[in-house]
C-alpha cells in the first residue's frame, strides 16, 4: 500500500513538474534569487558556443548569456550553461529547465507561436548551405540529384532540405542523426555525399575535420535562418530584458562605445550615449536592472561588433565576414531601436 502511494505521488509530482511554465514569480526574480542565469546552449559549435581548452564556454551565443548576467549581476561568469541537442532544446525551455535559449536557433513562426516561445534579438543572420567533397567535382547544389544527405534531426535544416529538393524536382536520401557530431562523423566516413546545416555551422564544423581542405561549401544559400535567443511565453519583463540586452550591444557599437573606451564615454555629452550608459534617464529600472546596465555589459563582454569579431569574425579561426551581420549603417541588417 505504502509503495503504491509513494509511486502514485511521485508519478503525479513528475507529471505536474514537467510543465511549470507559468508561475507567479518572474524569471528575473528567480534568476536573482538563484544568483545565476541558466542558459541553454549546444553541444559545441565553434564560434557560437563551445568550451575552450580550460573548459570555459566561449562563443557569440555564450557572450549573449554573459551580457545578460553582466546586466543583472555585474558579473559575466554568473552563467550556468546547459548543453542541449537540437531536439531537446524546446522542451528544456518550455519546462523551465533553462531561463533563456541561445543555441543557434532559427526564429520561425510556428516556434514563435505554437511552441510557446518568444524570440528576442537576432544575434546572427544565417542561411542554410551544403558541404561536399572537392573530389566529387560539384559546382552547384542543383547538381545534387540522387545524393545522400546527412543532417541533424529536429532542425529547420531538415525541413528546408526537403523543400529545396522538392522545389527543384530532385531526389535525395536523408540520413538524420540526433547530434551534430554524429552527423559529421557519418559524413566524414562517407555515409553521405552532402552535409547540410547553417552556413556558419559548415564553416565551424569544417575546422574540426581531419583534412578541412578536402571539403568545399557550395555557393547556394537555400534559406533564411535568423538565429535568435528565445524565452518562454508569459513573462514580458524577462522577454524585454533579453531583447534589450542585444539592442544595447548594437547601440553601443553604433555609438562607438567599446570595452576599451566605455569609462571615458561615461563623460560624453552626447545625449544618446548618456541615455545608453545610464548617466541620464532611468532605462535600466524599466527592465528591472540597475541604470548602469549597459556599462556593465560593454565593460565585461563588449559591444556587438567586438563580440562578433572575437568569436566568429576575423579575430577567430572561423574568419566569417560581417556581411548581413553588419550594422544597418554599414550595409548590414543589424538594426536596434533607440534607447529613449
Amino acid at each position, binding site marked *: *500500500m505504502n509503495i*503504491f*502511494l509513494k509511486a*502514485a*505521488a511521485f*508519478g*503525479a*509530482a513528475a*507529471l*505536474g513538474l*514537467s*510543465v*511549470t*511554465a*507559468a508561475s507567479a514569480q518572474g524569471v528575473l526574480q528567480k534568476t536573482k534569487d538563484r544568483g545565476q542565469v541558466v542558459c541553454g546552449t549546444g553541444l559545441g559549435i565553434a564560434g557560437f558556443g563551445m568550451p575552450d581548452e580550460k573548459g570555459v564556454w566561449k562563443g557569440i551565443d555564450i557572450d549573449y548569456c554573459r551580457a545578460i548576467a553582466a546586466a543583472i549581476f555585474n558579473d559575466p561568469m554568473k552563467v550556468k550553461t546547459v548543453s542541449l541537442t*537540437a*531536439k531537446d532544446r*524546446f*522542451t528544456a525551455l*518550455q519546462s523551465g529547465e533553462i531561463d533563456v535559449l541561445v543555441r543557434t536557433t532559427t526564429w520561425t513562426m*510556428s*516556434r514563435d*507561436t*505554437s*511552441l*510557446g516561445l518568444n524570440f528576442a534579438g537576432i544575434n546572427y543572420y544565417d542561411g542554410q548551405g551544403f558541404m561536399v567533397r572537392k573530389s566529387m567535382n560539384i559546382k552547384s547544389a542543383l*547538381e*545534387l*540529384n*540522387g*545524393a*545522400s544527405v546527412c543532417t541533424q*534531426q*529536429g*532542425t529547420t535544416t*531538415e*525541413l528546408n*532540405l*526537403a*523543400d529545396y529538393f*522538392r522545389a527543384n524536382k530532385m531526389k*535525395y*536520401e*536523408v*540520413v*538524420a*542523426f*540526433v547530434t551534430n557530431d*554524429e552527423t559529421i*562523423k*557519418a559524413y566524414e*566516413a*562517407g*555515409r553521405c*555525399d552532402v552535409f547540410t546545416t547553417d552556413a556558419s555551422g559548415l564553416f565551424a564544423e569544417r575546422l574540426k575535420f581531419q583534412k578541412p581542405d578536402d571539403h568545399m561549401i557550395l555557393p547556394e544559400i537555400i534559406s533564411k535562418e535568423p538565429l535568435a535567443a528565445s524565452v*518562454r*511565453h*508569459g513573462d514580458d519583463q524577462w522577454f524585454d530584458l533579453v531583447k534589450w540586452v542585444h539592442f544595447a550591444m548594437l547601440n553601443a557599437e553604433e555609438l562607438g562605445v567599446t570595452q576599451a573606451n566605455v569609462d571615458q564615454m561615461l563623460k560624453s555629452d552626447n545625449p544618446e550615449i548618456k541615455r545608453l550608459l545610464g548617466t541620464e534617464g532611468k532605462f535600466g529600472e524599466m527592465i528591472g536592472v540597475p541604470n548602469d546596465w549597459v556599462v556593465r555589459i560593454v565593460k565585461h563582454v563588449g559591444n556587438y561588433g567586438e563580440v562578433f569579431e572575437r568569436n566568429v569574425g576575423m579575430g577567430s579561426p572561423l574568419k566569417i565576414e560581417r556581411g548581413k551581420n553588419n550594422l544597418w549603417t554599414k550595409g548590414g541588417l543589424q538594426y536596434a531601436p533607440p534607447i529613449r
Partner: protein
Amino acid sequence: MTTNLANEGATRVSPLYDPKVRGIAYQVLLGLFILFLIYEATTNAIENLKAAKIASGFGFWTVEAGFDINQKLIEFSSTGGSTYGQAFWVGLLNTLLVAAIGIVFATVFGFIVGIARLSHNWIIAKLSMVYVEVIRNTPLLLQLLFWYNAVLKPLPDPRNSVSLFGMFFLNNRGVVMPNPIPGPHFNWTWYATMLAIVLWIALSYIARKRQAETGKRFPANIIGFALFIILPLIAFLAAGSPLGFEYPKQSRFNLTGGMQIYPEFVALLLGLSFYTAAFIAENVRAGILAVSKGQSEAAHALGLSNGQTLRLIVVPQAMRVIIPPLTSQYLNLTKNSSLAVAIGYPDLVQVFTGTVLNQTGQAVEVIAITMLVYLSISLTTSLLMNIYNRRMALVER
C-alpha cells in the same frame, strides 16, 4: 434460541470494527486518492500548457510533416504531402520490422550457442562461452556503435562497390539488390504457396492421428515441404514466369533502382540479435540442464535415437524452463530497438519522439503515444508467449 441469539450477536458487530469492511474502505480511499492525484496532475499540465500558450491536442496528427525518412515500408515523402500521423506509422513499422527479424535471428542463434555451450567438443564449448561472456558484459549501445562505425563504415563508397554477379552490390550505403517486380498473374504463386501450407498442416495432423491410432508413421514433413516447393513452382511456370527484376544502376552519387538495405538497419539488427542471443543462449542452457539425465537414459533405453531423444524428450521439457525468461528477452529486444537513435535508424523513437516532437513541440502528447505503443507491443508479446507457455506447461492430471 440461545444459540441463535449468539449467532446474531456475532454477525451484528458494528461495521466500524469489521476487518473486512475496514479493508475495503481503505482500498476505496486509496483508489480515490490516486484518481485525485492523476486528475490534479492532468489538469495542472493542461492549465500550464494553456497559460504558456503551447499548442496541445492531437490536431498535429493530420498536419503535413514536410520532412523525409530514408527507410520506409509505406509511402512517405514530403513531396506527397505526408502527415505527422504517417510519420508515426513509418516509425512504428520500422520498429516492428527490426524487432521481428531481430527476435527470429536472436532465437535461432541463441539456441545454437546455448546448445553449443553444452557440446562435448572443447573448442566449440569454450568459444560459445567466450561469446556469451563478452557480449553479455558490454553495453548494448557500445555494441551498436561498434557495428555501425567499425564494421560498416570501412566499406567502399558507392562508386567502388563490391559487386556480386553485377546484381548485388555492397558499399557504405548498404546492400543494393535487384528489386523483384511481380507480373500480372503472379498472384497465383501466392495462392499456391498458401494452399501448400494448408495441405502441409492438414497432412501432419492426419499423420499424427494415424500414428496415435495405428502406430504407423508417415513422413508428413518431407512430403509437406516438397509440396511447399513444387506447388508454387508449378503455378509460377504455368503463369509464364511473371516476375521481372529492376536492376540497380550506377548513377552519379548512388546506385539507383533496386532494393536497398540501409547500413543503419543492418547495424541495429546485428547489434540487437547478437546481444539478445547471448542471453537466450544462457536460458537455453539452463533449460536443457534442468531436464534430469534419467530422462534421456530412459529414452535411450526405449530405443529412441539421439535426435529423437532431443526432439521428443529433452526439448519439450526444457521449453517449460526456457519460455518465461525467453519472453523477457523478446520484450527487451523490442524495447532496446529504441537505441536506434544513436545510429540514425528511423524507428519510432527517432522519427516520432525525435523529429515530430521537435517540429510540433507537443511533448506530452507525443511521449504519451509512444509509451502506449511500447506498452501495447510488450503486452501483446507477453500475451502470445503466455498462450504458448500454457500449451507447453506441465499438464497435471
